[in-house]
């Protein structure tokens, strides 16, 4: 079978000693930074991205995949032990996970989260391998009009999933699109919105945006509260869940994996919904829903698996269509571009080594987490005991090093500082930075595809409605926006998020 031989081919590449070492280093460093409170996967990857610049493309992507999973796992560790989720998808884990930690079962919570993530990762890897081929061949018939319409659908979906006001989410996406326009126009090369400054002439790097809006701005927010957090003094306890705990967890893990795999494929960051959906589902299915919120192991196993499965299948839109569905994948695009790889359906046929090597290394990354990172949990706990008054200094210096390593350009650090103030301001006015990032990432691609589509149609905007696939995407996008504004649905949506 093709699938098996392709995966075998990938495994052969991923299992070279150098690549194993890189995947391991990525996992370790990803966990190291990701475990810092308030630092989610976006900021972690942004900080560590420069480390991969010197590697060859396949090795770089394998290391990045390791960083990504490490960051995810680090985020779960911080939510379970500290109740400080680094990003919205870890919020759910914190509910029952932190409660388990308070009962002295932190080890089991961390263990089941790693085991669940591993099972989810294994299944999701197979899903990617099976779906990538068919989807990539579908993508080959897409023209610029279809791409533009698809990205519009992704943005509409992001609006639907954003928390709080729909209007504010739309504005954030537009601001992101506008920020992406800073720099040279891709066709004429004329500079736009650069204030005449040479250091803005190349536009804004997505890693800068990630570190400014999600790294430094988060430090500003955390400093408001002072030393409020407390590391759990209770013992970590057993790491491996017992037989009974495994039995209660296995079905939530499988259900979470299914939910996460499906939601992760959707353009527009469907993965962010997966842990919430899984938590709600497990609570509905449970014989005794009252246990949820009081340290129910299913409340950790399900959402963590869903989160990891979604994190993994969100590679699908990127690898098959070339469209990053969220900010993390946008950083992956940034990394690929630096190595001269254009993400899209052609990757699979033109660079099978890279494609299948990456997919195999995803599974390897998950395995690393289970067998190497889990036993190191004591180390991460020690790290979390560093008081925040010192920890944030470390975060600031990591961001400085990360930014400087991208272009060796000191002005980039100032841009990051400006973005950090901007990000702090956003939260003060009730805006969320996540939709902005997605708009930023898709902005340039949308402009290019819009320009080409209009050129092909000789300036006729009806082309988006006359081509059936494009029209279908537009209809879906409009429908989602309408749904987002309907009061009844909004209420349900808010309930899911406040759960």
């Amino acid at each position: 079978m093709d699938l098996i031989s392709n995966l075998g081919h990938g495994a052969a590449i991923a299992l070279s000693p150098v690549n194993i070492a890189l995947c391991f280093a990525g996992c370790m460093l990803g966990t190291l930074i990701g475990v810092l409170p308030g630092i989610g996967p976006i900021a972690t990857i942004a900080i560590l991205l420069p480390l991969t610049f010197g590697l060859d493309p396949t090795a770089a992507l394998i290391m990045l995949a390791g960083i990504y999973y490490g960051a995810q796992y680090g985020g779960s560790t911080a939510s379970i032990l500290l109740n400080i989720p680094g990003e919205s998808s870890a919020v759910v884990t914190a509910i029952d996970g932190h409660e388990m930690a308070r009962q002295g079962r932190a080890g089991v919570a961390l263990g089941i989260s790693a085991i669940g993530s591993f099972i989810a990762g294994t299944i999701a890897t197979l899903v990617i391998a099976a779906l990538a081929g068919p989807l990539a061949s579908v993508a080959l018939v897409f023209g610029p009009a279809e791409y533009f319409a698809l990205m519009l659908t992704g943005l509409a979906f992001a609006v639907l999933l954003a928390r709080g006001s729909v209007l504010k989410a739309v504005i954030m996406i537009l601001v992101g699109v506008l920020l992406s326009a800073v720099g040279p126009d891709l066709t004429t090369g004329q500079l736009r919105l650069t204030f005449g400054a040479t250091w803005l002439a190349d536009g804004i790097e997505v890693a800068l945006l990630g570190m400014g809006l999600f790294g430094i701005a988060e430090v500003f927010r955390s400093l408001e509260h002072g030393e409020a957090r407390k590391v759990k003094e209770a013992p970590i306890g057993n790491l491996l869940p017992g037989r009974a705990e495994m039995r209660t967890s296995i079905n939530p893990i499988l259900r979470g994996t299914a939910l996460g795999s499906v939601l992760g494929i959707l353009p527009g960051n469907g993965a962010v919904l997966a842990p919430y959906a899984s938590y709600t589902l497990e609570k509905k299915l449970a014989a005794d829903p009252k246990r949820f919120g009081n340290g129910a192991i299913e409340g950790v196993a399900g959402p963590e698996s869903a989160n990891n499965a979604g994190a993994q299948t969100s590679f699908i839109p990127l690898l098959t269509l070339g469209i990053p569905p969220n900010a993390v994948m946008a950083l992956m695009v940034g990394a690929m571009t630096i190595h001269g790889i254009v993400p899209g359906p052609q990757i699979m046929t033109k660079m099978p080594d890279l494609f299948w090597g990456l997919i195999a290394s995803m599974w390897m990354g998950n395995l690393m987490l289970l067998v190497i990172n889990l036993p190191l949990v004591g180390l991460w706990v020690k790290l979390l005991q560093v008081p925040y008054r010192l920890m944030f200094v470390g975060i600031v210096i990591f961001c400085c090093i990360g930014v400087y390593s991208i272009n060796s350009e000191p002005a980039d650090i100032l841009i990051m500082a400006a973005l950090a103030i901007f990000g702090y301001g956003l939260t003060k006015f009730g805006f969320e930075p996540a939709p902005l990032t997605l708009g930023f990432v898709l902005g340039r691609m949308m402009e290019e595809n819009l320009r080409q589509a209009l050129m092909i149609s000789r300036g006729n905007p009806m082309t988006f409605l006359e081509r059936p696939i494009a029209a279908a995407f537009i209809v879906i996008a409009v429908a989602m926006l309408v749904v987002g504004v309907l009061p009844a649905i909004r209420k349900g949506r808010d309930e899911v998020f406040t759960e």
Partner: protein
Amino acid sequence: MTPTNDARPGGLRLRSPQNLVAGLILVAASAFVVWMLSGLSQGTMRTMGPAMLPRWTAVAIGIGGAVLVGLSAIQEGDALERWHLRGPLFIIAALVIFAGTIRQPGFLVAAPLAMLVAGFGSREVRPRELVIFAVVMTLACALLFRFTLNQPLPMLVIPALSLNF
């Protein structure tokens, strides 16, 4: 919720100061962007110019801002939040110092300086502890990033002493 809003007789009541200010800022920012783009051509639908997308995006943002201003009189919303300036001020200063010193005299000076300044962003700063932390972190980062991971960080560059490594 904002319990402090007093109803003015006959006038519109301000229900969401946060949205009002946010909306006004957006309108002003979008006007500024449109002005900045005034020298660039918009092109035609068939051949889009460089200003087409940013200009209309900015206009849309302006409209969004105007709607927010309008909504602030109709919908109950949040009050303006307090800005805590201590953290941002010290950290921005630290970033500026790092940017100014990283090329010359290099990381071994830039990093501890930046960390010492940033540390005062916290109200709970303890100077002696901070100094130790800054020195240890600088050495650890130098080892990790420059020597283990081969990042292009200039460590110590002093032309007068012909130092450059």
